[in-house]
């Protein structure tokens, strides 16, 4: 899509000051409404004229969605808290440093100053065929342009593809899964629903046109970090082409507790390999109770990529993911890169 540099097509702009008022507008405009957080995903769609909402609902004036609070010995992060605020928060730094690393790895400084954590986990796929406005499955059509014999699909999925091969672009997502974060949702009916970060994301098999469980009219209000993994040993690594702006080719996040050299508990998730961030439960199961060494890391890493189905240009993601899982489990110094 050619970049258009004039003003977007007209829409109504609402700046409600409460979640209820925001949902009333969403209800009034139905499919014609668009939720705006930091706008760094939203505005691309609107500028490119691919989405043409009648009404945009800016959540920026809703005070209850902002800021980081202590809650039940953990933290509650308002959905409209910016990534920079997350990075700078002392509680995050002390107990949930992996979220800091992940948020700091996203996009660029100016984007982090404005992008919200709620928007980061709710952002749409970056598959460029989809973003160009082509009628692919995700856009409601009946084809995946990225999974054709001559498609350019270097950034696409190696796991869990079901017709659509787009990947989830969020850097905070795998970190939140590892921390067992709880996503607080206000449903369109006004009720509160809490789902774990792992279940917040959906793959194309379940819903090919959405990235999350958010139904139209629902809002993510907060993300709760429970005590469970506070202060654990964390590992986060994001591999990308340029160190700024670029989305993860593959990223890995893990939290573990050890006793002596034995892995007691571990949680590990990857992103950039499937349409949703993947928690690697099988890897967790084999690693738990084993010594934290090269042998365990190799077994776990091989298990992690089992069933991978690379496309024309993304086979490199298989060894990349394997190595990242290995490094997450073994630690950086000792884990040898293999291909």
């Amino acid at each position, binding site marked *: 899509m050619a*970049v*258009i*540099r*004039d*003003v*977007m*097509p*007209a*829409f*109504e*702009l*609402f*700046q*409600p000051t409460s979640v209820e008022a925001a949902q009333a*507008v969403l209800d009034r405009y139905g499919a014609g409404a668009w939720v*705006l957080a930091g*706008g*760094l995903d939203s*505005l*691309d769609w*609107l*500028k490119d004229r691919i989405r043409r909402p009648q*009404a*945009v609902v*800016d959540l*920026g004036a809703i005070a209850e969605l902002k800021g980081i609070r202590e809650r039940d010995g953990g933290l509650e992060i308002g959905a409209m808290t910016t990534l*920079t605020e997350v990075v700078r928060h002392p509680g995050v730094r002390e107990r949930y440093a992996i979220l800091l690393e992940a948020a700091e790895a996203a*996009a*660029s*400084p*100016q*984007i982090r*100053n*404005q992008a919200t954590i709620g928007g980061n986990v709710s952002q749409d796929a970056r598959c460029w065929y989809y973003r160009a406005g082509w009628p692919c499955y995700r856009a409601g059509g009946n084809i995946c342009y990225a999974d054709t014999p001559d498609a350019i699909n270097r950034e696409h999925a190696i796991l869990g593809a079901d017709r659509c091969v787009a990947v989830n672009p969020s850097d905070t997502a795998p970190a939140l899964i590892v921390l067992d974060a709880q996503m607080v949702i206000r449903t369109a009916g006004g009720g509160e629903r809490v789902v774990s970060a792992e279940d917040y994301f959906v793959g194309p098999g379940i819903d090919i046109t959405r990235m999350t469980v958010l139904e139209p009219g629902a809002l993510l209000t907060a993300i709760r970090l429970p005590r469970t993994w506070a202060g654990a040993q964390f590992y986060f690594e994001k591999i990308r082409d340029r*160190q*700024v*702006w670029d989305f993860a080719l593959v990223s890995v996040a893990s939290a573990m507790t050890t006793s002596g050299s034995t892995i007691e508990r571990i949680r590990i998730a990857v992103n950039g390999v499937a349409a949703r961030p993947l928690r690697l439960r099988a890897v967790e199961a084999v690693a738990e109770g084993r010594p934290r060494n090269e042998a365990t890391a190799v077994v776990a890493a091989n298990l992690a990529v089992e069933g991978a189905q690379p496309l024309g240009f993304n086979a490199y993601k298989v060894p990349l993911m394997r190595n990242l899982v290995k490094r997450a489990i073994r630690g950086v110094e000792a884990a040898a890169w293999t291909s």
Partner: protein
Amino acid sequence: MSLSRRNFIKGVIAGGAAASSAAYLFRGAGSLFGQTSAPGSVERLLSLTVNGQTRRVDVLKQETLAMTLRYKLGLTGTKIGCDRAECGACTVLIDDVPHYSCSVLTHTVRGRRIVTIEGLEGPGGVLHPVQQAVVDEQGFQCAFCLPGFVMAAVGALKTNPNPTREELAHAVSGNLCRCQDYDKILTSLLRGAEYMRRTT
């Protein structure tokens, strides 16, 4: 405020730029002069605090801050490179924090303090230390990216006045230079940090 010759010329140029580009840029924007309002939606007329001045502007709901600054307020020092949050040319400070003004709806910054490259200079046209450093070091080639880099650096120096070269590089990593002049840009920005520490 005494109207200096320089400011007067600037005003005339800016006014001309605003008038001539508006018709072109806002043509696809629907009924520019007749945009109706749904009940409960924002008022088009708003007050913006830009470079210490309160300016009344008529802003389309879908207008970005970069557009308002350049084509409504005549502040063309803020550049638009990509219009997609991918280059940094449009960087301005909002409440002292660097933002891409191409990716901010003007209506979302009502009541906040906006500073553009034009707002850096002190009374009597004294350059900001970072600007002065850029002049002294001749940090840029074509300098299209300059305003963005300077604003990003000025913003970063507010939270970290004494950055290492690496820290400052990280702070301005959201700005691209088409002339690939990064090394000299960093040197001049670091010099700017030094000037700032000296002046305070």
